Structures are given as structure tokens and as C-alpha cells.
């Protein structure tokens, strides 16, 4: 059995027929072909699969594709505009928040969601918000700094 789903991903309309149990992360990666979002832990803990659904960050590994019917979804591929990286992406590059790349798409989507809601977060705000995104390369100081500097317009 399949279910018919329509949603927008990075501004582009998509219509899919997927099995009811298809997870959003799999639809994004394999049905639509946007492989920036990563499947990490698969249980909603690590944050590598973070995407925005109607502006709210979610774990796409825990969401049924069918539950996103009608939604407006943004993935890491949707941040750059006309070939130019978004400020938060530049911030991660410039200040070393970007390491091996596995957690980075989720980190950046979470950071973007924070800045959308709170353009000038304190360090405590950043830590509370980002605590659900795990990095196993380098610790978190560079990530926090990347977000702080981006918020300060220093990219």
C-alpha cells in the first residue's frame, strides 16, 4: 500500500507515492535525492537528520513522510541562494564549526532555526538550543563560536 503525499522542499513542489511507513529522512534522501540530511542515530537523539518543517526543526528520522503532507520543508540544500552560501554556512566554514561533515547539515539547520527565532542568542541560549545536536569530531566550542559570529554579522 502507498500513500500520496504532496509537499514543498526548498521551494519546489514534490508529489510522491510512498509506503505508509516511509520515514521523512528516507523520502528526502532516496525519493527526492537530497542527500545532505544524514541518518545518524535513527532514534531522534543525534540531530544529523534535522530539517525544518513549516519553519520548525524536527528529527526527520522520527517523522512519517505522510505526516508531512502539505508541509513546507527546508533542508541544508535550501539555504544557499543563487549559488551563495547562507551566512550561517559561511560562519561554520570561517570559524571551524564545519569538521567532518556528518553532523554539519543538522547542526546548521538547527542553528538556522535558532537564528530565525532569536537573531541575537546568548551563549546560554545557543547551548540550550543546540544540545540535541551531537558532534563527535571536535567538541562544541567552534560550533558555538560559529553561531555567535554569524549572529554578530561577522561572516
Amino acid at each position, binding site marked *: *500500500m502507498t*500513500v500520496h503525499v504532496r509537499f514543498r522542499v526548498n521551494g519546489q513542489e514534490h508529489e510522491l507515492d510512498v*509506503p*505508509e*511507513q516511509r*520515514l521523512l529522512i528516507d523520502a528526502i534522501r532516496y525519493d527526492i535525492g537530497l542527500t545532505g540530511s544524514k541518518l545518524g542515530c*535513527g*532514534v*531522534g*537523539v543525534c*540531530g544529523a537528520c*534535522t530539517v525544518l518543517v513549516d519553519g*520548525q*526543526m*524536527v*528529527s526527520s528520522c*522520527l*517523522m*512519517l513522510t*505522510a*505526516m508531512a*503532507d502539505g508541509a513546507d520543508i527546508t533542508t541544508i540544500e535550501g539555504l544557499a541562494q543563487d549559488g551563495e552560501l547562507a551566512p550561517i554556512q559561511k560562519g561554520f566554514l570561517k570559524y571551524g564549526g564545519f569538521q567532518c561533515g556528518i553532523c554539519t547539515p543538522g547542526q546548521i539547520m*538547527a542553528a538556522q*532555526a535558532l537564528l530565525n527565532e532569536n537573531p541575537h542568542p546568548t551563549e546560554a541560549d545557543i547551548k*540550550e*538550543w543546540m*544540545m*540535541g545536536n551531537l558532534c563527535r569530531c571536535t567538541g562544541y566550542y567552534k560550533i558555538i563560536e560559529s553561531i555567535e559570529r554569524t549572529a554578530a554579522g561577522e561572516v
Partner: protein
Amino acid sequence: MIPFALHTPTTLDEALDLLEKYGEDARPIAGGTALVLLMQQRLVRPEHLVTLGGIKELNGIDASNGALRIGAAVHHRVLENNEQAKQGWPLLTYTYRRVATVRIRNVATVGGGLAHADPNQDPPATYIALNARVGITSKKGRRELPAEELFTGYYETALEPGELITDVTVPRPERPLRTAYLKFLPRTADDYATVAVSVALDVEDGRCRDARIAINSAGPTPIRARPAEDVLRGQPLTPELFRAAAATVPPLTDPVSDHRGSANYKSRMAEVFTRRALEQATA
């Protein structure tokens, strides 16, 4: 995940019809953050899922009658950021803010969390401490249960097949309560607690008129610490009294040993965190 049929009702009546029709073979799904995991692990294998996201009746927060009425499909994060809830029931919004991460709270719902009935969750103890009532509806009608009577065991509730949690009502206290929710987190900030304690004290002239205390992660259900409440009630609040109240807690607990601590350790920490929660509430 094993296949299932998906139903997307747009009214409460339609949803209740579906739940009645399919009975034990159906599960309602709202956020899915708990149920999808259980289905992936094949701990739950429903043949039918009934989505609740499209049902308007389940989606409001209302404080116009004094009490706070929360629709079952309200997302955790909507409740934690609701101004009326923050002002009138700060213990509740604080507790929701301690749940997992923003990503989960954006999706997980109030009713779904209660129905999941994992004793490690945060809100149940606070609902018990605030004397909340859970509204349950089925084709047969509506009933209300005090929050503490909803939970009957690990992942077990008093819900019958065909019944749906539709709302939670938290009464408005006569005067502001002295409250605290204290979560013992030796590992990470987004973890489940080793133990967690919610206290709500009605204090007048330094004397405890009434007390409600509940503990998470210390047994198969959240535990109401009635003996501790009895020690406090009617007494002037002193550090000695808090110690005496907390000392009644370990025998009430029945925790499991796991990576968050041994059963014995959790029982003893339940005492320590009850005392600290009482101290924090009255500081």
C-alpha cells in the same frame, strides 16, 4: 517498520469512529516521536494508525474559565511558550522545557506524551503535583481521570481500546503555589532523568496548607509521595521538616537498575531530590 493502514480524520468524531472500529488493532498518532520508535523496534505493531494532527478540536489552549485546558494535540513547545500558561502555571511550562530537545518538543504532543506512559517522562509528575485531570473520550462518552490514575504500569495506562485522550485540565490555584521541578541528570541535559521530582506547595504565613509531590523515573509509574505530603501538611516549613518528609520517599519507590543508576541508588536519590525540590520551592 511493518506496514499499516493510515487514516487521516479531520474531526474528533471521525477519529473516534475509527478507533472504535479497529479497537486494539489501531493506535492514534500525533507527533509520532514515541510511537514511530516503538514501531521500528516492533514493540508495537498496529495495523491501523489514526492521525490526530488534522483535528481542530484537539488543538487549543484555553485559560478563560480559570483553569488551564490543553488540547491533546498541542505540541510541547507551543505549551511551553504559551503566555497564559507561563504566567499561571510556571511549573508546567518549566517542566515541558526540560523535555528532551527543541526538535522533539516541536513535534511531540501533550496527549501523546501522557498516553505513551513511559515513567521516565517529565510532565506526568508535574501534572500530578498540579492536580490535573485528563479528559478521555470514546464513542461511549467522556470521562475524566486524575492524572495519577492514568498511569497503571510501564507504558500502560487506564485507557481502554477506542478511548482517546482529548484534553488535560489544570486547576488554577487559589493563590500562587511554591513549586519546583528538579531533574537529576548525571549524563546529558537532554537525557531522561535518573530521578525527577515535582513539588507544589500551598504556603500561608510560613505554614504548609497543602502539598503535592510526585516523582518520575522511580518506579513503573510516576509516584505520588503521599506520606511526604502528610508530613508537610499543616506544619511550619523548616529544613528539619523537609528532611523528615523526604525520608518517607525511598519505600514508595520501585525503580529498575539501568545505565542511569542502580535501583538502590535511584531510591536514595529520590529522597535527596525530594528534599532539594522542597528547599528550592521555598527558597
